[in-house]
């Protein structure tokens, strides 16, 4: 396969950046998308040019590191997978691909396709956990949890923090990310004591980081590689409103 790539190149955080066109030739349909970029990069290196910087690590769809807009869709055209799980047989010979970094004020570009997602970490730090010290935990079976609740919690917990929801959202909102973490705990008895405090602190931090507001486009749900439901956002909205109206901490 031969492809034309339009790739965002940006030397550093302060560089304005631009799209650069490359051709990727003799690409095997069995390659993963990132392997295709590896091949292009090695050719660039051989020419003495700097390779296209992109984030990646586990290459099996779980670490949440890889992050690219491929033809205007986060993680590429297929649903429920990450960029590293896209394979080249998904494209046709002669295709032109547009490859861009996540775009959001809260995710500044560091270089090329690499963005800084520390805002997500700070949201978690603000309250995305159950405050328990190492040690004094009761027996794991001390509190029975219905399978339904455990499954709902697990559905939300599947979030890999990749940021595709922000990238896809026309408003660059982080609500799906925040909601996923908040409802993982909101569905569990262990999460109840801090439930409303958690919702409040995480949302307030999210606002502080400069993400946009959720206006219910649901692009996030469509882009999420773990197919996390926007019903989690409903729950977060409810908990946040309740936290404010009743003042429960």
């Amino acid at each position, binding site marked *: 396969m031969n492809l034309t790539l339009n790739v965002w190149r940006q030397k*550093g955080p302060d560089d304005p950046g631009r799209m650069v066109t490359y051709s990727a030739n003799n690409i095997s349909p069995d390659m993963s998308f990132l392997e295709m970029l*590896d091949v292009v990069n090695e050719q660039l290196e051989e020419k003495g040019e700097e390779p296209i910087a992109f984030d990646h690590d586990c290459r099996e769809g779980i670490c*949440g590191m890889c992050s690219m807009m491929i033809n205007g869709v986060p993680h590429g055209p297929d649903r429920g997978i990450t960029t590293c799980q896209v394979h080249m047989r998904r494209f046709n010979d002669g295709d032109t691909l547009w490859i861009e970094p996540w775009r959001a004020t809260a995710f500044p570009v*560091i270089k090329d396709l690499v963005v800084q997602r520390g805002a997500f970490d700070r949201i978690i730090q*603000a309250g995305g956990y159950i405050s328990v010290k190492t040690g004094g935990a009761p027996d794991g079976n001390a509190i029975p949890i219905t399978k339904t609740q455990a499954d709902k919690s697990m559905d939300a917990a599947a979030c890999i923090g990749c940021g595709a929801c922000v990238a896809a959202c026309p408003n660059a909102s982080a609500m799906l990310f925040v909601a996923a973490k908040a409802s993982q705990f909101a569905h569990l008895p262990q999460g109840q004591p801090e439930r409303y405090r958690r919702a409040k602190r995480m949302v307030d931090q999210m606002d502080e980081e400069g993400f946009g507001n959720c206006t219910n486009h649901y692009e996030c749900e469509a882009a999420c590689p773990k197919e996390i439901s926007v019903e989690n956002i409903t729950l977060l909205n409810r908990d946040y409103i309740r936290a404010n109206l009743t003042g429960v901490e």
Partner: protein
Amino acid sequence: MQLESNIPSGPLEDKWEKHRFDMKLVNPANKRKYTVIVVGSGLAGASASASLGELGYDVRCFCFQDSPRRAHSIAAQGGINATKNYPNDGDSVFRLFYDTIKGGDFRSREANVYRLSQVSANIIDQCVAQGVPFAREYGGHLANRSFGGAQVSRTFYARGQTGQQLLLGAYGALSRQIHAGKVKMYTRTEMLDLVLVDGHARGIVVRDLVTGKISSHAADAVVLATGGYCNVFYLSTNAMGCNVSAAFRAYKRGAGFANPCYVQIHPTCIPVSGGYQSKLTLMSESLRNDGRVWVPLKKGDTRRPSEIPESERDYYLERRYPAFGNLVPRDVASRNAKYVCDEGRGVGHEVNGERRAVYLDFRDAINRVGEKAIRDRYGNLFHMYQKITGDNPYQVPMRIYPAPHYTMGGLWVDYNLMSNVPGLHVIGEANFSDHGANRLGASALMQGLADGYFVLPYTIGNYFATKHKGKVTTDHPAFKEVEESVNGKLKKLMDIGGDRTVDSFHRALGQIMLDKCGVSRTAEGLKTALEEVAALREEFWENLKLPGGLSGMNVSLEKAGRVADFLEHAELMCHDALDRSESCGCHFREESQTEEGEAKRDDENFSFVSTWEYQGAGEEPVLHKEPLEFENVKLTTRSYK
């Protein structure tokens, strides 16, 4: 090099309890005066940072990823063992201890393994309290399954994402301490060297991967939680960034490296499809419950699998191991796959003139129980396989091949998880301590969290209270010296100006190692590998081509630093594999096998931990032996015939 294991005296089951009492404590008000550097934020690193922060220590945690949540622990799928005995099937602390010792082929320390088994139950409680959504029964209680051939159901799991959920639990605890100001987190920061002052580990030198800035950090103790070194093979199931550099730089500063040749190679991975392959994907071993492994009888048979009649197929595992068949242990399955491919009977894509894959065929299982039953059991795995390979495994046999997966070797540590360098602690996969020559399924997560939550937080205090010497700051000349050496090395890499890319060196190294220091090893092969690795390293330092510069983000430079260390570490692995002329666990020396071709352990001569001491560039490392004594278990031989 002094290797004092510091195993407490007394009966096995009382050692940890006794030791916890014997250890000196640090006054609560004084804890904040001690700074601890933790390198790595996986299960071990994150849990240790969080727990130390909670205790009141001043913690600095470093990771090279953009967030501590992305460490490779996240990719573990299967589960985590614990001796809860919830299913009432006879599990106990001693049984898990025994299984782990036996699984490790009697090459690990009894006392460490027993402690691991003792604290395993606490881990589950801790994680449940953190909100880890473990699978539940309808009654609301925790679900268990049997895993990796264990005869009891002691494995807890959260769908196929147990590693992810446990890591996110630890990451939550870490985040809480970051918010409380007890842990300072440094992301996209890579440790490039260890700083020793008066023989004690007192800090690290790091590179900021965004700006390229080199800086020093001083502390009262350094904890390495930097994972394993499977990526020495270039292709492995490890994440792309996993590397040996932190551990290896510590080794070069005097820490002993133990059992580097122990590498677990997982038999059911998706094979290489071309020279561009960057990484291998693991598929659950459970597939071997229903799949039959075969290759064509004839060499170079390139017919499609459906065209090969039954009489021309070799179900080699069933043929050689009639009792266990396709369910032989990981190392046996891996080794046999290599042999049939070496014979030229491999299948699948031709890469570098070889076909390295075997079939895992579900045809008979589908005929027996129906496609629906198979879909219910393995639907998601089949889906994943199809996504990656483009083949439909309901119709065409899967192709599998072994891939390096986990390294049991690591920096030598004593019972306190401290290396022979005072103050340098090593936890998780980065140390050598608990798995011997082979790791049991669902034990890696257990060990990482045991070290981080329940062992290190106690033992590090003992170091502070007993051996620690005064304060140092980064103004100490030792820091300047190490910084200069780090800068010098980076500059040297940038200045080579050759014309071969770093990936090309890494691929070449992987090829040598996989071929000669992989599933099956010979003295001759290892000697050749030593020569080849040395030659490759020489070429690396003469002919490496690196784009970009020292400042700002330079992905190629990051890789080059890691590959430079792998090129030295590979040699260490080969030395170790060559020296250990017995077969044990995952280490199979063709010279040491029974008449039936099974691994033959040599307890008389090799019942020890091989610990290697660095002797300087180009010098052969020196071997130190820590004898292994077994007082509570009887040494037995595995048999799968």
